[in-house]
């Protein structure tokens, strides 16, 4: 183990559910003040790892520390230092927003926390909903309350587990602005998300998990600089089929284009010549810089 001052220290953590090895000797360190991304496909072990560090589950083996506090032996200090925004949209239907936040403050041993609660409500644009029952809030508002609940005790480490799943663009932008601000103030942020563009723009460092193992752990910039295939985006003219050899490296994009993964720039010119020879007309050609999604797919394929 190294760096006892780390915000999160995860060392050799294993967790098994029946025959499923959810986490397999996971080790990683998140430094204080980092904006850290935890990525992986469904079932990779991200939520399991978050559950273990939040004390919602217990590791079969290994050590997890939050700001130097063991999550089992020293669970009170570990939890005081951690704020978790859970993935599921959960709420207690008996209470108003303010009651919810006062109660959550009390759980962390805080009384008369209303000044900070008001500040959080203001930042999350919830101040007009303070006395509204949780049941009456929209999904996006409930998501904001979850964020507020994770912040009532001013934790130095904040874990956001898929916080923008099913959330509209406006809230997503507002939420990220607020979380960026918290990070600038010195809070360590750990984020899991399926929106890889969010991770790319927010996270300074990223770990990728697959089948319970860490398969990549690097600075975001270094991950993006990895020598991976070029991505050529094409909009085909008319209803034509690609030649069979190119179909193997092609995928459809969300905007109706065709993305071709090619080894290098020479392969790009060869591909264009092949399309021309096959009589495939092109309306649009774009050679895009590999983004985190390309890197993610490449790393996942390598680890297969």
């Amino acid at each position: 183990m190294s760096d006892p001052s780390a915000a999160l220290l995860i060392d050799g953590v294993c967790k098994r559910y029946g025959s499923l090895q959810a986490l397999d000797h996971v080790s990683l360190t998140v430094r204080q003040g980092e904006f850290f991304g935890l990525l992986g496909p469904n079932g990779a072990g991200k939520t399991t790892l978050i559950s273990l560090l939040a004390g919602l589950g217990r590791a079969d083996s290994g050590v997890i520390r939050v700001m130097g506090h063991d999550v089992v032996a020293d669970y009170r200090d570990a939890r005081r230092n951690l704020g978790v925004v859970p993935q599921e949209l959960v709420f207690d239907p008996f209470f108003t927003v303010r009651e919810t936040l006062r109660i959550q403050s009390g759980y962390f041993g805080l009384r008369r926390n209303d000044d900070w609660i008001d500040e959080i409500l203001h930042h999350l644009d919830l101040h007009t909903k303070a006395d509204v029952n949780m049941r009456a809030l929209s999904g996006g508002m409930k998501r904001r309350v979850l964020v507020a609940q994770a912040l009532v005790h001013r934790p130095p480490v904040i874990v956001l587990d898929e916080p923008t799943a099913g959330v509209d663009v406006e809230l997503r932008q507002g939420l990220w602005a607020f979380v960026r601000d918290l990070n600038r103030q010195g809070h360590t942020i750990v984020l899991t998300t399926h929106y890889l563009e969010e991770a790319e723009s927010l996270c300074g460092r990223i770990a990728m998990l697959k089948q319970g193992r860490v398969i990549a752990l690097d600075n975001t910039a270094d991950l993006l600089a990895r020598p991976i295939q070029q991505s050529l985006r094409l909009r085909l003219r008319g209803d034509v089929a690609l030649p069979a050899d190119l179909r193997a490296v092609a995928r459809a994009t969300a905007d109706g284009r065709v993305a071709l993964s090619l080894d290098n720039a020479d392969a790009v010119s060869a591909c264009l010549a092949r399309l021309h020879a096959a009589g495939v007309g092109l309306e649009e050609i774009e050679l895009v810089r590999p983004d985190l999604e390309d890197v993610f797919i490449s790393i996942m394929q390598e680890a297969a």
Partner: protein
Amino acid sequence: MSIALRTLLYKEVLRFWKVGFQTVGAPVLTALLYLLVFSHVLDRQVEVYGGVSYTAFLVPGLVMMSLLQNAFSNSSSSLIQSKVTGNIVFVLLPPISYREFYAAYVLAAVIRGLVVGAGVWLVTLWFVELPYAHPLWILFFATLGGAILASLGVIAGIWADKFDQLAAFQNFVVMPLTFLSGVFYSIHSLPAFWQTVSHVNPFFYMIDGFRYGFFGQSDVSPWISALVAGGSFVALTYATLNMLARGYKLRS
């Protein structure tokens, strides 16, 4: 008492108080209906203790039955609802120890039980004048009985994964033990076999001891009742704390 424990207790009390019509008013009305029907039908036909009318005999039983059932309902329904809806996470994420968790749920359930019991007692004051031979025994058995059922409710709420499992626990365990505990009759009126069976039902001792507080008469000595009820509480507390310490069905 830590702030965390006080807050969880406050939250649990506020939870049932906000729906007081359902959690307090309804069981009081149910008990009142029992009293009206049973006392009307049986008051002149059943003699229990010497000099004690059936209606007077029935009232402490109904008070205690309502108290026990509502103490059980409070902890069990709160936990199953929190588990099913997922908001139990708000209690599991903070630095609340399993002992504080247990204490808060049990205390809140005892408070609900006492509030309902007091409600039943108040509405029955119109129908019968009760003696209060040993008020401390009344308070002792009311509190201890509530705590026993509250602990049982914590166990059931943690064990059950679905509402129908909890309903089964309530209908096949709590309800029969309550009804067969001497709420509506003295066990001395039963055949010998059923008297023996009643003596292995811990609920019988809670109700019998509680009734002793009113009339100064009971089927068994209040000290034996206190011993059995106290032993039941210690055993249930041990079992519940053991479940919570292991994180059974709460921290996988």
